């Protein structure tokens, strides 16, 4: 697609604004407005919940799930457009309404868009195409078997007659859609859109700065809000100088919000918090609201979490490890006997910190009440739980609440929670005006649902031949709310290398936690990969083995180990390990200069098999420079949008390196100590290295790419540091002090 083609995208986007400005009065209205705007008097009915063909030939496809940078607003409609058989340039994309009854679960998470929709959305397109063919066959008085399509047109094969899709659009109202299970799908060799690099639909607006994101929303008569919450998570407001805030020019309202009693862990299984206690300031621009906020002098009530700290957690972890574990999660063979009889044993303690999502677009939401109904515009990854949370908290019926999905400036799991949505809704109702709530960066970093910290106490044993015969992990993690572990703080009993080591024990202990936690890109895996893949690398070095060969040997000779849903395709992992070895020139790593090294790691998550090699240089002062990373990936037989796929993998790898080199949230006196990019640095361009990616084409159904490239990047880096320096990184983030010569 060229830059010129993108002008059509801009026009489509303008129309979306028209729709927004009349209000999302439901699906039918949206369609009738759309066709009226494009086709004057003619009104084409949608062919199905996703596809409308207007009489002028314009094709509108709805994007089912929110886009936070993972590219699904483009990728999911590509699947429909492929089987519908239209030219991509003729496609306009609109966000679908939040309507799980029609669309099923609408969310951005778990790298699930591809595996969930690869089959069903192609069938959506194929059904619409079959309807257009049927309408043409009826007009030509022939059977549908006499017809085929080229992009945008039905062709009568015997005569070569043609009808455009647009000319058939009205007649489709009389066509009964076929059963989706019965429609034929294209052979992959005939794809015109899938597998081709497609520029994101929103790119035209992104590069020209047009309104697009949550923070860009605007309503008539809208006010701007800020909301201050306690540094200690969940503490209530004791007092606030509301009058001082109201005295600031432009401030319209200032009030205390008591918050929900179960704000910290709302009932109903929502990820993240409900309405937290705080103080709202509402003004006619955001800066005025912020100035009002700065006058509030809020006093916070005492809260038990005020006694918690990262230092305390580390002390508790060490104490817990010295005692009997709280519970056993897996116990294969006889670990104690195997360790006793081992030719060599290794013990190591690993730790990783809390992390913030640090979406570059701070949390925000726009909310408006009209005639007792609530409409919100939110950069959420999961709109329906937000709607339910608003309904419960505000005492409304869910059907009286409309949630519009708008583009999010980064997701990474943070926006699976909807705390900002319920805050905006509450503040708009109190303020009796449409309100845009925008968190400060400091609010965002200090009121995250953090990637949980964790501690692993490993023991491993090798036999005389250098085989890993015993492995033990005492995982000290956190518990909050009613679950056995805090959100995203658990570990599967099938965690690798379970099932590949004959004597293996996983024990778990927990520390009570008053800090909110939640999923961060590749949740669980982003931390576990570091600990386990580093320790396996330690065992390889203890065995005197080539770490890559050791990993391949550990995977055994079976193709698949275990049963679904915990099956592990060892053959696929061996495949990516071998590929990354070849790509990276692993065999020649001995020729690297002093202070440089290569490390390898592999990890299976989100249905994808990834092996990565990192090449690093470490200075005498302990500064780490990643020079290059190679990635071999197996996500099945088809990459849907190569443009987006490569971007996701490269970004995931650099994101992982950024976490390892820089990031940590520490807790002191029950509050996050970091508050902005000055003390929570992210990678910058000068640190970004080339990332070479190879997708292995295998026979499996395609799976997602938002997450699985991240986890192995971190241990590949730390294992490379060991190769370069002989120093083992056992806690994150990496500091120069750990690595000084």
């Amino acid at each position, binding site marked *: 697609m060229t830059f010129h083609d993108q002008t059509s995208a801009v026009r489509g986007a303008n129309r979306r604004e028209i729709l927004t400005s009349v209000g999302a009065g439901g699906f039918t209205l949206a369609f009738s407005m759309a066709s009226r705007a494009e086709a004057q008097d003619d009104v084409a009915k949608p062919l199905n919940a996703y596809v409308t063909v207007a009489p002028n030939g314009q094709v509108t496809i709805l994007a089912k799930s929110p886009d936070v940078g993972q590219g699904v607003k483009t990728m999911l409609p590509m699947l429909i457009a492929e089987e519908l058989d239209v030219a991509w340039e003729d496609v306009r994309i609109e966000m679908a309404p939040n309507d799980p009854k029609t669309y099923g679960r609408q969310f951005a998470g778990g790298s699930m868009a591809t595996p969930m929709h690869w089959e069903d959305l192609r069938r959506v397109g194929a059904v619409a195409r079959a309807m257009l063919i049927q309408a043409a066959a009826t007009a030509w008085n022939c059977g549908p078997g006499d017809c085929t399509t080229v992009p945008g047109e039905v062709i009568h094969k015997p005569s070569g007659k043609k009808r455009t899709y647009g000319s058939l659009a009205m007649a489709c109202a009389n066509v009964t859609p076929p059963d989706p299970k019965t429609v034929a799908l294209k052979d992959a060799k005939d794809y015109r859109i899938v597998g081709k690099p497609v520029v994101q639909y929103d790119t035209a607006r992104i590069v020209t700065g047009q309104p697009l994101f949550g923070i860009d929303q605007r309503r008539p008569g809208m006010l701007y809000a800020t909301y201050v919450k306690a540094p200690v998570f969940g503490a209530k407001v004791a007092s606030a100088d509301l009058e001082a805030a109201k005295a600031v020019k432009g401030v319209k309202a200032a009030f205390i919000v008591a918050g929900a009693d179960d704000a910290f862990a709302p009932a109903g299984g929502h990820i993240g918090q409900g309405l937290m206690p705080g103080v709202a300031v509402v003004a006619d621009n955001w800066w005025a609201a912020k100035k009002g906020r700065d006058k509030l002098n809020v006093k916070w009530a005492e809260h038990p979490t005020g006694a918690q700290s990262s230092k305390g957690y580390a002390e508790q972890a060490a104490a817990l490890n010295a005692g009997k574990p709280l519970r056993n999660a897996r116990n294969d063979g006889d670990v104690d006997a195997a360790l006793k009889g081992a030719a060599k044993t290794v013990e190591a303690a690993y730790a990783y910190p809390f992390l913030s999502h640090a*979406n570059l677009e701070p949390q925000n939401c726009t909310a408006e009440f009209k005639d007792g109904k609530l409409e919100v515009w939110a950069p959420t990854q999961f709109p329906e739980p937000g709607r339910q949370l608003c309904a419960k908290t505000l005492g409304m019926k869910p059907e009286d609440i409309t949630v519009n999905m708008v583009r999010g400036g980064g997701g990474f799991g943070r926006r699976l929670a909807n705390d900002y949505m319920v805050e905006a809704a509450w503040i708009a109702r109190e303020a009796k005006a449409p309100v845009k709530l925008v968190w400060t960066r400091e609010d965002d970093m200090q009121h995250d649902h953090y990637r949980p910290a964790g501690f692993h106490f490993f023991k491993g044993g090798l036999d005389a031949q250098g085989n890993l015969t015993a492995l033990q992990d005492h995982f000290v993690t956190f518990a909050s709310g009613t679950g056995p572990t805090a959100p995203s703080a658990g570990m599967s009993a099938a965690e690798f290398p379970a099932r590949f080591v004959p004597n293996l024990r996983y024990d778990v202990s927990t520390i009570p936690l008053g800090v909110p936690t939640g999923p961060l890109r590749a949740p669980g895996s982003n931390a576990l990969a570091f600990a386990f893949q580093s320790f396996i690398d330690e065992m390889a070095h203890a065995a005197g083995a080539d770490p890559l060969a050791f990993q391949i040997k550990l995977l055994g000779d079976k193709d698949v180990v275990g049963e679904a849903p915990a099956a592990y395709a060892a053959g696929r992992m061996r495949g990516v390990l071998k590929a990354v070895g070849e790509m990276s020139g692993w065999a020649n790593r001995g020729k690297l200069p002093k202070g440089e090294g290569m490390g390898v790691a592999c990890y299976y998550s989100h249905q994808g098999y990834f092996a990565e090699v990192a090449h690093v240089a470490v200075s005498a002062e302990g500064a780490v420079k990643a020079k290059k990373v190679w990635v071999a990936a197996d996500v099945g037989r088809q990459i849907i949008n190569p443009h987006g796929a490569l971007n996701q993998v490269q970004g995931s790898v650099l994101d992982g390196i950024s976490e390892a080199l820089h990031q940590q949230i520490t807790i002191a006196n029950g509050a996050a100590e970091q508050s902005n990019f000055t003390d929570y640095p992210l990678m910058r361009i000068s640190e970004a290295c080339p990332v070479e990616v190879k997708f292995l084409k295998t026979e499996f159904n395609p799976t997602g790419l938002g997450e699985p490239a991240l986890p192995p990047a971190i241990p590949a880096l730390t294992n490379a540091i060991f190769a370069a320096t002989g120093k083992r990184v056992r806690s994150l983030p990496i500091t120069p002090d750990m690595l000084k010569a």
Partner: protein
Amino acid sequence: MAYTLNVNGKAVSADVDGDTPLLWALRDTLGFVGTKYGCGVAACGACTVHVDGQPMRSCQIPVESVGKAKISTIEGMAAHPVGKKVQAAWTELDVAQCGYCQAGQIMSATALLAKTPKPTDAQIDEAMNGNICRCATYVRIRAAIKRASGQKEV
């Protein structure tokens, strides 16, 4: 009070307190929402605009200090001889993931290329290091700058 500002070649009026950062006057009062809020402390570059051609963090510029300076925002880049090339390169390579930082990236890249038409990697690092991309699209940002400047991309 009302401040008259020159934004993208046009005189516009913003009735705000003088200490209001240019960022918020642009976004909330004047409707130029392409300029983004990311950190408020000049640490992320999302709010980068040109002030008389120089890339500046608009979150740190009080409106009262702007005076007659010419402000350019992302909305004005299509009419900027270098800016439009940068936008085209950004589109052709589809640099963005979430896209939130990219207005600031494009403003910094445009200012760089206006001054240094064929930047080296080191010059790119220096000019672009103030702009965070949380999605880490740095490989493509570098390639797009090379493309816009007519240099080999890798």
